[in-house]
């Protein structure tokens, strides 16, 4: 089997093709290999390359591994940045340039925070808001991912839905608030719908972009491995778009929080946005500050959670930075 005693040429040219070049016979005037490599002249200077073993010096010179030093530097500088801003604020507040009711000292903000935490005001508001955000965000981004990925992959779906998406994309989510209130009242449903719409627009755009960026080589490789169009969709396009989907999910989360607070400022009897509104109406600037800090903290925690999940899901991808 291994020997090559064939009775057939592996390739046969068929027919007497007019366009077929009359192959030239191999030229026997093949260029002779250049034999004129000169001898290396003996020079008196130092050799061009000298191998030196400096391994010991290299180890002692570099100190701690660069990675660890980097992450310490990062944490320290990040803390420093926050500390500088807090220090400036504290200085301005304690100097009394503005009325303390308008610009409360950090210690006052802190005690207000503790007070409102223990009497249940903040926890209740957080719970009310969190429910709205989670519901709207989940519905909006799930719909966005399903519709966006389908649009990015199936041309007819894209043609069908794209004009609609393009039409609502530039409209700020809050512009729908009056209409939604007229149709659905000022209950929970309205707020969830407004948040869902905002999350949808962001994730649909990202999901579609992710599907369009799928490397053609992967698609063709899958096709020549026997995958059908639909199989390529779920086994190649979807997984390779996952980094985009997560990028969309994270932006959608931020947008959901922004929309929530704005929606609650307009119409709500509870929630963080409502608390913010109340604080400003009754000159409780310290309460306003506390709510702002909590909104920031909650959004950050959720974003970090998402980042954690993202890292687990896309462990296959190149580590960034």
């Amino acid at each position, binding site marked *: *089997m*291994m*020997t*090559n005693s*064939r*009775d*057939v*040429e*592996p*390739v*046969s*040219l*068929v*027919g*007497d*093709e007019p*366009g*077929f*070049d*009359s*192959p*030239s*016979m*191999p*030229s026997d005037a*093949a260029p002779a290999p250049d034999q004129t490599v000169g001898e290396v002249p003996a020079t008196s200077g130092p050799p061009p390359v000298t191998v030196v073993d400096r391994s010991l010096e290299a180890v002692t010179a570099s100190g701690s591994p660069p990675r660890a030093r980097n992450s310490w530097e990062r944490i320290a500088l990040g803390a420093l940045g926050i500390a500088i801003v807090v220090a400036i604020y504290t200085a301005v507040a304690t100097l009394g340039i503005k009325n303390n009711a308008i610009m409360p000292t950090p210690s006052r903000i802190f005690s207000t925070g503790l007070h409102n935490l223990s009497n249940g005001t903040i926890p209740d508001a957080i719970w009310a808001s969190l429910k709205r955000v989670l519901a709207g965000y989940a519905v909006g981004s799930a719909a966005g991912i399903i519709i966006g990925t389908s649009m990015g992959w199936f041309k007819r779906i894209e043609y069908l839905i794209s004009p609609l998406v393009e039409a609502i994309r530039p409209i700020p989510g809050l512009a729908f608030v009056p209409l939604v209130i007229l149709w659905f009242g000022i209950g929970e449903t309205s707020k969830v719908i407004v948040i869902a719409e905002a999350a949808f627009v962001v994730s649909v755009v990202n999901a579609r972009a992710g599907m369009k960026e799928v490397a053609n*080589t*992967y698609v*063709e*490789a*899958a*096709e*020549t*491995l*026997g*995958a*059908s169009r639909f*199989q390529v969709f779920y*086994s*190649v396009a979807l*997984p*390779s778009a*996952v980094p985009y989907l997560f990028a969309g999910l994270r932006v959608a989360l931020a947008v959901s929080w922004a929309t929530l607070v704005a929606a609650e400022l307009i119409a709500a009897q509870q929630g963080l946005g409502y608390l913010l509104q109340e604080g400003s109406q009754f000159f409780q600037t310290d309460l306003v500050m506390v709510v702002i800090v909590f909104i920031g903290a909650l959004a950050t925690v959720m974003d970090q959670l998402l980042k954690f999940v993202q890292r687990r899901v*896309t*462990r*296959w*991808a*190149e580590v960034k930075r």
Partner: protein
Amino acid sequence: MSMSMTSAVPVKTSEQGIAISLVDVRHEYVRTRRSDPLEALGRTSLDIARNSFVSFVGPSGCGKSTLLRIVAGLVTPTEGSVLVEGERVHGPDAKRGMVFQQDAVFPWLTVRRNVAYGPRMRGVPRRERQRAADEWISLVGLDAFAHAYPRELSGGMRKRVDLARSYAADPDVLLMDEPFGALDALTREQMQLELLRLWEERRKTVLFVTHDLEEALLLSDAVVVMTARPSRIHAVEINNFPRPRRPELRSDPAFVEARQRLDALLMSGSAHAPTSATT
């Protein structure tokens, strides 16, 4: 030992049979509405015997890759048709596997799941396809990396995964479009020997596009030399060095001679390039 063909050769039928038939295939790319279409591949007819390894060489930009993609079904030719194992090609299919120059191993799947991808798409039960995958992984010497992700592997190792994956899908023919073109010289040489060994163990019909004449000669039973655009077949060098082939073959006088002959053919083929409209 080797010869260059000077005229069209009639189809010989034997127990080996014909795996691939190109019937009057011609292809042109439409660029813009205003400019003329670019003829990538001039009318070509060619029969390729089953289980032979055939390389295509030619100046860059000639239609070698286009020819391969037409056989794969990734490109529909402007004219003519391709028969593979007697069936007319309509679109890509598991029967015609392809190895690309670019890294085409799925980065989101482990080595094992990459290699098992073809059988998975065909609906082969999990146990069975894993067994098949493990066998191929072992054949390309990656047992220790079955559960690694591609980014943990070197470029050469990923190419092995790619080869194993193509083989595991069990195609009738394997099409390789400069598969080692993006590798460094040393890795490329290793991969050539790897493919040589693999192919000599598990024969398949292989069409192999390359720029590397030595690679073409070392691996194949025949080397097809193509002209510059619009590409046509310029000559066919039948390459009967006995198998199994060893890397030392490269320094064999007959091999060196064949290489020089191919070089000359390639030069004369490029010189025939029409100096018309195309840039």
